[in-house]
């Protein structure tokens, strides 16, 4: 009755053991919770609303415990039966399969049980201390006050993982100007009795220091990049924003029609009318120019990078983890360094967008290059192609569909990031959305959101249809 998992362990089926063990644990944990909440209800007997709440929880945990236990046992019985048949069949083929009970397995099962169950049950019967309590407790210990063993144990084992404040606070670093007007590094040691810090605080402080150092002493570099980006953007923006709307609409319709056919042109027309009628025209064109600038940069840098990754093992080994990081770090996170280095406005917005949108370009280009059949490349070599000819006449043309898919991805991702980049002042449609978010103007935000979606679909349809039509 007690240990179906012990039976499974004896028989050497660890999958069944895990199942039975976990089921019994869930049941046991629920029982422990019942105990915990009924105790809590007695402790807080004077507060009626708490007692009611705890009693509700007690009831539901009792039901869950019974249900899990009963259903788990039925399932276990069924699985054990199947396992027995399978084991018997195996034994008929191979007589070395061990049957019956083996004592060493009982030991392992007992060890697992002893390691997991007491701690888990203890944890569920207690209210875990919060972080602040534990920090206070650490300080108290440092001052030499008496803390009971139970309180220490609760903080170290069942609370948050103890981060231990053991590193002395780092120097504060500032970069004032000296008498000649040059920047210097000034270190201020911490107060004499400043409390120690933990790893997180220490490292983030150091990162801030380095960013500060780089921005102060190599600021001209970032200013240069900002200048280039701003110039590029203003050129593109003057096309989209500076052109009177009738001309822009006409040109966009013509391009859509030429590249992707009449139906797409109709869709583009309808979307443009929506944007114009709801007063999003300027913002939409602003966003468009941001997207175009970001996508251009992505393609210009992503294509050669993708070729390198596709052709060289080392390139792949270096770039792939970088791309993984670029894609998985939440987009808000690199808005921060973008502000740190480039302050706020459109240029850092574009840079953040480029970081976000570049990976698919590199990946898909590399994929396309790698997918070129080996024998086609061999044939080109057999006819005397040099590496450059191989690339331009065989590999790139054959990788083109994949590269075009990459460009499409880049545009879509740029658009989504440009909206987020409005948080650091990139402007455009995203600005309307963030403004609406701040003032909880649901209707306005929704209309702008639809506008962004239409913008995205418009670009996507035209680029994709253009692909299909060409092939």
């Amino acid at each position, binding site marked *: 009755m007690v240990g179906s998992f012990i039976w499974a362990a004896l028989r050497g089926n660890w999958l069944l053991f895990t199942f039975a063990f976990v089921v019994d644990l869930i049941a046991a944990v629920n029982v422990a919770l019942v105990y915990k909440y009924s105790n809590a209800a007695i402790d807080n007997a004077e507060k009626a609303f708490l007692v009611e709440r705890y009693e509700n929880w007690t009831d539901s945990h009792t039901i869950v415990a019974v249900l899990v236990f009963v259903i788990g046992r039925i399932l276990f019985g069924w699985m054990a039966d199947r396992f027995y048949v399978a084991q018997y069949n195996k034994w008929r083929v191979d007589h070395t399969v061990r049957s019956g009970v083996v004592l060493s397995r009982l030991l392992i099962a007992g060890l697992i049980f002893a390691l997991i169950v007491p701690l888990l049950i203890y944890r569920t019967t207690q209210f875990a201390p919060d972080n602040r309590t534990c920090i206070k407790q650490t300080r108290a210990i440092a001052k030499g006050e008496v803390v009971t063993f139970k309180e220490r144990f609760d903080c170290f084992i069942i609370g948050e993982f103890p981060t231990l404040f053991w590193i002395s606070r780092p120097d504060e670093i500032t970069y004032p100007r000296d008498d000649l007007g040059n920047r210097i590094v000034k270190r201020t040691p911490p107060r004499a009795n400043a409390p120690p810090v933990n790893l997180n605080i220490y490292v983030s402080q150091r990162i801030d220091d380095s960013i500060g150092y780089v921005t102060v002493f190599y600021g001209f570099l970032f200013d240069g990049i900002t200048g280039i980006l701003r110039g590029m953007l203003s050129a593109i923006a003057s096309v989209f924003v500076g052109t009177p709307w009738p001309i822009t609409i006409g040109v966009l319709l013509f391009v859509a029609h030429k590249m992707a056919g009449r139906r797409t042109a109709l869709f583009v027309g309808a979307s443009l009318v929506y944007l114009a009628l709801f007063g999003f025209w300027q913002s939409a064109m602003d966003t468009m120019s941001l997207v175009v600038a970001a996508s251009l940069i992505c393609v210009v840098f992503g294509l050669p990078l993708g070729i390198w990754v596709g052709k060289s093992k080392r390139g792949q080994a270096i770039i792939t983890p970088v791309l993984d990081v670029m894609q998985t770090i939440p987009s808000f996170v690199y808005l921060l360094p973008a502000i740190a280095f480039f302050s706020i406005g459109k240029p850092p917005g574009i840079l953040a967008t480029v970081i976000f949108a570049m990976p698919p370009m590199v990946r898909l280009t590399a994929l396309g290059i790698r997918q070129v059949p080996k024998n086609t490349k061999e044939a080109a070599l057999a*006819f*005397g192609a040099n590496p450059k000819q191989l690339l331009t006449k065989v590999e790139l043309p054959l990788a083109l569909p994949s590269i075009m898919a990459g460009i499409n991805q880049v545009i879509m991702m740029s658009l989504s990031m440009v909206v987020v980049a409005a948080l650091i002042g990139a402007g455009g449609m995203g600005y309307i959305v963030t403004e609406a978010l701040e003032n909880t103007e649901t209707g306005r935000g929704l209309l702008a959101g639809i506008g962004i979606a239409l913008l995205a679909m418009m670009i996507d349809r035209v680029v994709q249809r253009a692909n299909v039509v060409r092939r």
Partner: protein
Amino acid sequence: MSDSAKIHTIETHNVWKIFGSRSEEALQAIERDQLSKAEVLEQYQAVVGVRDVSISVGEGEIFCIMGLSGSGKSTLVRHINRLIEPTGGEIFINGINVGDLNAEELRILRADKIGMVFQNMALLPHRTVRDNIAFALELRNVDAFTRAEVADRVTSLVSLQGYGDRYPSELSGGMQQRVGLARAMAADPDILLMDEPFSALDPLIRRGLQDEFLELSKTMKKTTLFITHDLDEAIRMGTRIAIMKDGAIVQTGTPEEIVTQPADDYVSDFVAGISKLKLVYAHTVMEPIEKYKAGKGKLPPIKDCAVAHPDDDLDTLIGLAIDQNNPTIIMSDDNPVGVVTKDALLLGVQGGS
């Protein structure tokens, strides 16, 4: 003219290819200890692709390399234009050591001297038939006008007129391989390397293309290295045949030599199912006239006998022997040189001679 005196178009001297990171060591060990293929794999994690191959192909010859898959024939042919670097040995083309060429010289050799046809065609799907054919010329920076001219000429050579502006995917397998052939010939190379060119095609189309290729090579006189896994094809196409097994050449010879004097059991197993009718000639099965007279006595009068030439094949001789009781007399320059009896004919068909 003695064989050693003339420069062969293609020559390989003791070419070895061993795949694996420890190929050099493995080669030394093989030469020292005479390891077998399995031992090399076990001790050096290396695979022997080509084992001590020396062949020489004369100008205008169609030299067939026949072997089952995995015998190293495709690997061997890729050594000729150094798509694969040999682990040991040397390769000469028109007396020039291919291993000594630098990258640029090698590209020139590949573009000018050697055309290659692949089993899977390996055409460029984004280019029209014309641009595919002119690919080798384009790589050599020949101007567009000349390219189009040459492409059109070669297109008609492989009877693909009117298909110049189509894309490879619009053509059937047989037509695609014609494009492959045309592409190999467009740069007018001296040497054609054909790596199982017709293997992926169905039998009827294969036969048609074989015939067409034979016709073409009669007029073009290109030295051809023809890889195949099909002995019938090797016999139809080849002036000489080399049979490969496990990376090594088992036997080299004319089709007739291979069929009538197989070097070992492996070759005779292959040859067993081959029809000898078109392969065995009168001079092989005939009995010299003196020997016939010594055994059977007098020769019947020539006017009562069928008469044939020493180079007539069994098929012809059988045609002559039907409805004829007397043996067939073989005449060379109006002189009787031998006699073919029906017994000799039957033995010839069976393969013994």
